[in-house]
C-alpha cells in the first residue's frame, strides 16, 4: 500500500546536521512492530531516573489493538515519522468530536497520542539521537487544524513530564481534567498562526 507522506527533517544530535525523514499519514504494521520490538524494551531500563519518570509500561498491552481501531475510523488521523529506517515518533489525532476549551463554540484537532522514540529522549539514553520529532508531528497537527477550518487549534492531555514542552510552545494550561487524570493543554489561534506563518520565512 502506498502511504501519503510529507518530507521533513530531524536534527541528528551526534553529527550536528539535519537528516531527511518522512512523515507518513497512517501508522503501518512496521511502525507497530518497531514500537513493540524497539521502543518497549527500552522502557524497561534499570536506571533509577528512568523508573521514576516512566509511565508507559502498562500502555503497550492493548496498544496494537487501539491503533488498529483508530486506523479504521475516518475521524482519526494516524501519523508516523520515519528516519534511518526506524519509527522515530507517532501521533494519533481526532478531528470531529472535540470542542475547544478556550473558545467553547469552536472545534479543534485533539491529539489522542503523541510520543517520540525512546532513543530520542535524554532521560532514557545518555546520547539521544534525533531532535525535533515532536515539533514536526505537532506542526502537522496544527496544519491539519487549519485545513479543517479550526484555525490551528489543537488540544491534548500532557503527561506530567512533558508539560514544560507544551507550555514553552505557548499552549495554555487549562488545568487538571478529572476524567483523563492529566492536565489539558490547548494551543490558541494566534500562537498557531505565528508558528505556521514562520514556515515560509
Amino acid at each position, binding site marked *: 500500500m502506498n502511504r501519503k507522506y510529507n518530507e521533513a527533517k530531524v536534527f541528528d544530535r551526534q553529527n550536528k546536521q539535519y537528516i531527511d525523514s518522512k512523515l507518513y499519514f497512517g501508522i503501518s504494521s512496521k511502525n507497530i512492530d518497531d514500537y513493540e520490538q524497539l521502543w518497549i524494551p527500552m522502557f524497561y531500563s534499570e536506571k533509577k531516573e528512568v523508573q521514576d519518570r516512566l509511565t508507559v509500561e502498562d*500502555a503497550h498491552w492493548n496498544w496494537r489493538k487501539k491503533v488498529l481501531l483508530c486506523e479504521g475510523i475516518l475521524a482519526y488521523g494516524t501519523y508516523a515519522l520515519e528516519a534511518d529506517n526506524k519509527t522515530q515518533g507517532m501521533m494519533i489525532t481526532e478531528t470531529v468530536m472535540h470542542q475547544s476549551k478556550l473558545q467553547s463554540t469552536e472545534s479543534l484537532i485533539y491529539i489522542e497520542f503523541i510520543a517520540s522514540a525512546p532513543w530520542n529522549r535524554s532521560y532514557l539514553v545518555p546520547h539521544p539521537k534525533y531532535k525535533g520529532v515532536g515539533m514536526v508531528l505537532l506542526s502537522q497537527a496544527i496544519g*491539519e487544524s487549519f485545513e479543517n477550518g479550526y484555525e490551528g487549534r489543537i488540544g491534548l492531555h500532557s503527561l506530567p513530564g512533558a508539560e514544560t514542552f507544551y507550555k514553552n510552545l505557548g499552549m495554555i494550561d487549562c488545568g487538571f481534567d478529572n476524567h483523563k487524570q492529566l492536565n489539558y493543554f490547548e494551543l490558541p489561534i494566534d500562537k498557531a498562526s505565528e508558528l505556521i506563518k514562520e514556515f515560509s520565512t
Partner: protein
Amino acid sequence: MFKLNPSIRWYDKYVKGDEKPEDISAGAFFIPVRFLEDNVDEDVEQEVKILKYSFSILMNKLRISKNLSLEQLSQKIEVDFMELFQIEKDPLFKPHLRTIWQLAEFYKIPYKALAQVAGAINTNEKLKEDLVKYAAKSSSFEKLTKEEKKQLDEIVKIIKEFGKS
C-alpha cells in the same frame, strides 16, 4: 493531508534551537497506574484503606519536616490547597496522579513507589508492612521529635529503595 513544508530557518528555530525539553508524551493512551475501582472485594479494599492512611501520615510528616504549611506547599508545587488538605486529613481521598507526581518530585521520592503508597494496586508486601508499622508509631503533633525524624528518614529510605528495585 496537510502539506508540511517548513523553511530551514523554521527548523533552525523550532527544531535545532536551544536545549528544549524533549519529553513530548501526551494522551490518555498512557494512563499508567490503575487505581482500585468500586467492584473489588472487601479484604483488598481494607488493605488499601490502611495503606492510604499511611500515605496521609507520611505526607503530613514530610511536610512538617520541611517546615512548610499546607498553603506554602500548595504554592511551591502548584497543587490545589484543598487537595493537599484532603490527602493529609482524609485517608480515603484519591489523589490525582499529577499531584502524586508533583509531590514525588518535591520530596525526591521515586514516582512509581509513591503512586503505589498512595493506594494503587500491586503494592509490594514488604513495603506495605513497613508503612503500616510506620503509621502505627506516628503521633499527630505538628512538630517532629528527634525519634520521629529518624523514623521518617527510615521509611523514606525504604520507599526509595523500593523505587530502585
